[in-house]
């Protein structure tokens, strides 16, 4: 007997709890993944309305149990996405959500409008870790009001699922979480990468051409777990936990901490089959406990 691992997000039913994280799984087409059955959903690489070249190399630096990246949201733009990928996605038996980005509130809205209703586009993950050019480059995600504005702009343009992906680089993540929930998000994804830096001792300059980058991987797991838990305690909509998940135990920690599902990112770099490993390991765990459904997993969500 196999345990029921399906997840009901309210606005969307997933066949499992493990989702491929944006920017770490390309457009879902790169790796010929044998264990597709274990993929609950894919979030595609972050996209802007128009094509973006991305940042010059070096774009990544390894750090202890983690990595910094500054890809600069390289992407083909909405038009090419719809032409090259959406048709493929429409044939798949799990949803693909598009990770959307903008430099202005209006750009998020326009991008949503262009993608909405196109077969293959299963929903939106709104990346608010983008600099707001109208407000002097301050990140949307750092300001509850700007984050809510973006969420509303997207929400207005679509009836598809709208997930908002929170940044950890903020004083009070719960405040931003409540603001975007109020603005109409169907689910919150916690969290994106943590701002970091690394210095090259040959050039005496940052190793990344962009100077700073986002830290991901197992190193951030305890921090991400804490933030995802904070968010789960402060909103009613489902929370999708992200950050350093490599094995089933890691995913289970996020689920116990109140998340409805998880995303796996950097771990797939070391192991192209990481998602299958997490999924199958959760199933094995439930079975070892004699549980028939993920719903039997105890959750830790104290009120105080």
């Amino acid at each position: 007997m196999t345990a029921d691992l399906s997840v009901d997000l309210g606005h969307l039913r997933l066949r499992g709890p493990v989702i491929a994280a944006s920017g770490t799984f390309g457009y879902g087409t790169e790796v010929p993944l044998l264990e597709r059955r274990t993929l609950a959903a894919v979030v595609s690489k972050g996209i802007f309305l128009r094509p973006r070249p991305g940042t010059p190399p070096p774009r990544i630096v390894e750090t202890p149990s983690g990595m910094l990246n500054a890809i600069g949201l390289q992407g083909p733009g909405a038009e090419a996405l719809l032409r090259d990928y959406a048709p493929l996605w429409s044939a798949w038996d799990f949803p693909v959500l598009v990770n959307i980005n903008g430099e202005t509130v209006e750009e998020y809205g326009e991008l949503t409008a262009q993608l909405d209703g196109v077969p293959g586009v299963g929903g939106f993950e709104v990346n608010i870790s983008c600099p707001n050019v109208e407000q002097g480059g301050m990140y949307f995600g750092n300001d509850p009001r700007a984050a809510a504005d973006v969420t509303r702009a997207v929400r207005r343009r679509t009836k598809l699922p709208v997930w908002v992906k929170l940044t950890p680089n903020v004083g009070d993540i719960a405040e931003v979480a409540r603001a975007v929930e109020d603005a109409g998000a169907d689910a919150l994804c916690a969290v994106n990468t943590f701002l970091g830096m690394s210095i090259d001792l040959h050039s005496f300059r940052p190793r990344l051409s962009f100077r700073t980058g986002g830290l991901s991987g197992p190193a951030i797991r305890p921090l991400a777990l804490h933030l995802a838990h904070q968010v789960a305690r402060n909103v009613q909509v489902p929370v999708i936990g992200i950050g350093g998940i490599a094995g089933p135990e890691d995913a289970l920690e996020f689920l116990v901490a109140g998340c409805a599902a998880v995303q796996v990112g950097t771990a797939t770099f070391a192991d192209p089959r990481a998602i299958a490993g997490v999924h199958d390991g959760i199933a094995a765990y439930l079975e070892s406990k004699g549980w028939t459904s993920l719903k039997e997993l105890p959750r830790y969500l104290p009120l105080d």
Partner: protein
Amino acid sequence: MFEASAPLSERRQVARDMFVLGFDAPAVAAAAKAGQFVNLGLQPGPLLRRPFSVYRAGGGRVEIVLRAVGEGTSQLLSLREGDLVSVLGPLGTGFRFDPAWRSVALVSGGLGLAPMLLAARDARAAGLSVHWVHGARTAWDLGSEWDGEEATWATDDGSRGFQGSAVAAVEEEFGAVLACGPNPMLAAVAERWPDAQVAVETYMGCGTGVCLGCAVPLTAGGYDRACREGPVYRAADVDWPALPSHLYYTAVPVASPSRPSPATGGGEVPV
């Protein structure tokens, strides 16, 4: 693409500090073409895999050639026979071979020799005559393995063969040039032979095309993925000044004499 939990089955020295490691991974070995690479995972070990050109492939075994430059390569060189490594590959787009060229020059510097034995194999299979021109700092740093007819050696100090770089050592004309070596050397190749096929190196996150970490700046604008569209490029297509030249193969020379590390050897000290 295969993932093999592959035992180390071969280890031999081929130059000063330069070693060949062989892993039993029949499916990877059978599929590997010249210029492709494998991405090696160690556990325990660094988070990310480490990419290495396929040096030799056959008899169920994949070989790589390397020098210890950091954590991952040091750990690889301390493996013992039978130790398991995760071999992911073959990856990337290798060299193309066209019988119309008639002859091909394989130009390599230092560890850039890595793809050249397979390139010679595949070139011969395409009916090409092969000439290898290989350079290194000194005679001690040249690789010792070459199974072909024609080879020219070049050393910076003139201790063997031509004194100067491998690029400068190429005197004849060839139907095509294939090159591998430090990125600055490849920039020189691009100057002289815009149509040469060169195998570049970049930092890599995934090796499978999903992270966009291995960006290669193109003269046409934008970036390609070294792990997918590359690592082999038409030399003139790469925007060399924009490709980091600060990928150093020497660690920062700091000693941490007192850190307890198996690598630093035995001894017992009071604390």
